[in-house]
């Protein structure tokens, strides 16, 4: 193989890895898009909701997933099983706390309650992080499945080039794409989805339609929590995690949502996908410690060059 081919091979490899990890990031971002993009709630604890999703998936895996479904399928079953629990968690969070600083309650507040949301969710984040450390300990945990270290090889093609595709990530990416499609159909086509959109679009008019706006917001918050947590559970098969892991990902999520155009669910997916690609490609030239810094710089560039995002349609949110 010539030198250009070696380079080409690693670029292709990075693109493939970027697409797979990007699909999971996309799912993660879609969860935040439901909460921040559509419902306009600033949630600093989204990364920690994801951390909880990782632990929930982990305990589901060691609790029953591995025994009942085997270590390969079990990890994905565990991630999916954690989602409804995290929906309930998000729902309850909204019912008990978030509701007080959002929707009709925030009408008279400064900056529509955004300051209050910022402080409240920062507080929730700290409680979750430290609570997790007390309960689960500060050490790294991972969901070990044989698929994490198994790969399919594509090739050889060209002059001896070959790509390897990590099996755990392929399955995780496929699950992500399926969930996003299902969510998208739900939002576009079903009565529930339409009333969620209406409640986000114009809360006051929604009341006149007989929509319980508070409940619609709570449902959206629960969905957003469950989706990000599911992404966490899927990620946990490849990445070890700890109680403070949320911080790393919350940046990715906000960057993805802004990149995708605030308010657009599909846009958030493409935003997350783009970040996955940027991250993997930057790893070709930069040391891995700088990966997150790359995302920061990238995020700044987006905000400077195109604050309205790249993928969202303007009419989706007027």
């Amino acid at each position: 193989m010539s030198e250009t081919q070696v380079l080409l091979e690693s670029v292709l490899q990075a693109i493939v890895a970027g697409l797979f990890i990007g699909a999971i990031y996309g799912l993660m971002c879609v969860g935040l898009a439901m909460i921040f993009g559509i419902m306009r709630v600033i949630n600093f604890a989204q990364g920690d909701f994801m951390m909880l999703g990782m632990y929930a998936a982990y305990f589901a895996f060691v609790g029953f997933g591995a025994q009942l479904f085997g270590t390969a399928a079990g990890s994905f079953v565990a991630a999916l099983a954690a989602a409804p629990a995290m929906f309930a968690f998000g729902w309850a969070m909204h019912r008990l706390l978030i509701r007080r600083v959002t929707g009709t309650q925030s009408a008279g507040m400064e900056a529509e309650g955004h300051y209050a949301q910022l402080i409240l969710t920062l507080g929730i984040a700290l409680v979750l992080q430290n609570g997790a450390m007390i309960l689960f300990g500060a050490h790294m945990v991972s969901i070990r499945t044989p698929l994490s270290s198994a790969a399919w090889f594509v090739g050889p093609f060209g002059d001896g080039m070959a790509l390897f595709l990590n099996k755990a990530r392929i399955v995780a990416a496929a699950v992500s794409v399926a969930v996003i499609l299902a969510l998208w159909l739900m939002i576009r086509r079903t009565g529930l989805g339409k009333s969620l959109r209406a409640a986000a679009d114009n809360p006051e008019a929604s009341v006149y339609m007989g929509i319980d706006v508070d409940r619609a917001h709570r449902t959206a918050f629960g969905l957003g929590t469950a989706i990000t947590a599911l992404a966490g559970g899927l990620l946990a098969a490849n990445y070890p995690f700890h109680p403070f892991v949320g911080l790393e990902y919350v940046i990715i999520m906000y960057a993805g949502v802004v990149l995708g155009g605030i308010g657009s669910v599909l846009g958030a997916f493409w935003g997350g996908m783009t970040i996955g690609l940027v991250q993997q490609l930057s790893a070709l030239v930069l040391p891995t410690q700088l990966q997150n810094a790359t995302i920061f710089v990238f995020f700044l560039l987006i905000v400077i060059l195109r604050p309205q995002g790249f993928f969202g349609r303007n009419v989706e949110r007027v």
Partner: protein
Amino acid sequence: MLEIRNFVAGYSQVAVLHEVSLTVEAGQFVSVVGPNGAGKSTLFKGISGTVAPMGGEIRFLGEDLLKVPPSRRAHLGIAHVPEGRQVFASLSVLENLEMGARTPEGRRTWSRNLEQIFAWLPVLAQRRDQPAGTLSGGEQQMVAIGRGLASAPKLLMLDEPSMGLAPAVADFVFDKLMEIRRDTGLTLLLVEQRVAEALQFADRGYVLETGRVVLEGPCERLRADDRVRQAYLGM
């Protein structure tokens, strides 16, 4: 059908409406007129529950409306077409109508109702898949009215349907409303700045000033009242 007695409401504990009483009988068309800031929209919001009541009583079909959560009131048969249209900008025209039809009666009669709405307001059929936010002001007002009708209401409340429209378009909207009322006999409660029109076709009228009903009665009597003629009809 709708009985409001000594109703007090306002914003952040400051009363805007002071002991307002108003009655709408089934099948009637009642107009409420008054200067800007009189509290007409606040009265409508009080009926729909988006401002908090501070006193008095509202009954709808005998039921104590103030005990019904705001989001349940549409289900009793009250449709509120709010001031400034307030369409769901990001939803298509058809989806806006579907949102109106979330009430039990609206669901039951949906397909028949939709046909009827499209017959009255053909522009909605032409624009059915377009996001409502991209329509003109007049078209958005049609969406708001169609959305109200889609709930198959017993009482239709319209807050300044002519607001911000060119006179010709406002006339058209008003004619449509009169056509719909002729066809269905629907009970109407209308707030209007265009006092001449509002008092021409209505059965009863109320004049609201700084949160108080200062005059009420059959419309022919209001039209003949000197104060109304001077202040609102420019005569």
